[in-house]
C-alpha cells in the first residue's frame, strides 16, 4: 500500500512573487501601448479617407493636452518595448560568430538598439524630406 500523496502547489499570483517575473509582465504589457497607438493611427487613416475636414478634426484632436500626455505615456511604453525586445533578441538567435568568437548577448542587444536608433532617425529624416 503506497503512502504517497504528492501535493500540487497553486500557480495563483506566480508572477508577483519574483521581481524577474514582474519585469516580464511589464514588458509583455508594452504590447498594449503599441496597439493603442496603432489604433489611433488607424482612426487617422479612416479620417484621411473621409476628406480634409475629417482629417483636420483628427489633427486637432492630436493637439489636445489629453492627447499629447497620452502619447507621452504611449511613447514611454513603446520605448520600453523596443528596449525589452532587443534584450530578448539574443535568446532567439543562433550564436553570432564575429572574428572567431561568439558575440556576447550584451553586444548583440547594443548593436540592435543602435540599429533601432538609426531606423528611428531615418524615419524622421524621411518625414522631414517629405514635409519640405
Amino acid at each position, binding site marked *: 500500500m503506497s503512502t504517497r500523496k504528492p501535493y500540487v502547489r497553486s*500557480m*495563483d499570483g506566480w*508572477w508577483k512573487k519574483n521581481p524577474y517575473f514582474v519585469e516580464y*509582465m511589464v514588458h*509583455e*504589457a508594452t*504590447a*498594449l501601448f*503599441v*496597439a493603442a*497607438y*496603432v*489604433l*489611433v*493611427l*488607424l482612426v*487617422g*487613416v*479612416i479620417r*484621411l*479617407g473621409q476628406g*480634409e475636414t475629417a*482629417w*483636420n478634426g483628427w*489633427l486637432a484632436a*492630436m*493637439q489636445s493636452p489629453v*492627447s*499629447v500626455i*497620452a*502619447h*507621452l505615456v*504611449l*511613447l514611454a511604453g*513603446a*520605448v520600453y*518595448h*523596443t528596449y525589452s*525586445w*532587443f534584450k530578448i533578441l539574443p535568446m532567439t538567435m543562433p550564436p553570432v560568430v564575429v572574428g572567431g568568437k561568439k558575440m556576447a548577448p550584451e553586444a548583440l542587444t547594443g548593436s540592435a538598439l543602435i*540599429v*533601432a536608433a538609426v*531606423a*528611428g*532617425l531615418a*524615419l*524622421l529624416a524621411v*518625414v*522631414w524630406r*517629405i*514635409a*519640405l
Partner: protein
Amino acid sequence: MRRNLTRSNAPIFWGLFGAGGMLSALFVPMMIFITGIAVPLGLLLPAGTMSYPKMLAFAQNFIGKGFIFAIISLSLWFAVHRAYHSLHEFGIHAGVGAKVLCYGFALLGTVICAVSLLGLGF
C-alpha cells in the same frame, strides 16, 4: 513509443507576432513622437508636415501605403498574440473563444486598414 502528437499551427501567429514586434520596436517610438507630440506641438518638423494634401499623397503612394499597412497590421498581430498568452499567464483559461476574439480583432483591424488605404486610391 511516441504518443499521437499533432503539428502546431503556432508558427503562423508566432511569425506575425515576431514581424510585428520587430517592426514596432524599430519604428513605433519615432512615429508616436512625430504624430503624437512633435507635429501637434509644432516641434522640430516644418509646419504642415501632416497637412491633408501631404498625408494624402503619402498614403496614396505605393510605399507609403505599404509602410502604414505594415505598421498598423503587424503591430496588431504582435499585440493580440501577447494579450492572448497573457490571459493564460493570469490563470484565465478561456480556450478557443478567447483565441478567436484576440486574433479576430487583429484580423478586423487588418481588413479595415487595408480597405481604408485602398479606398484612398493611388
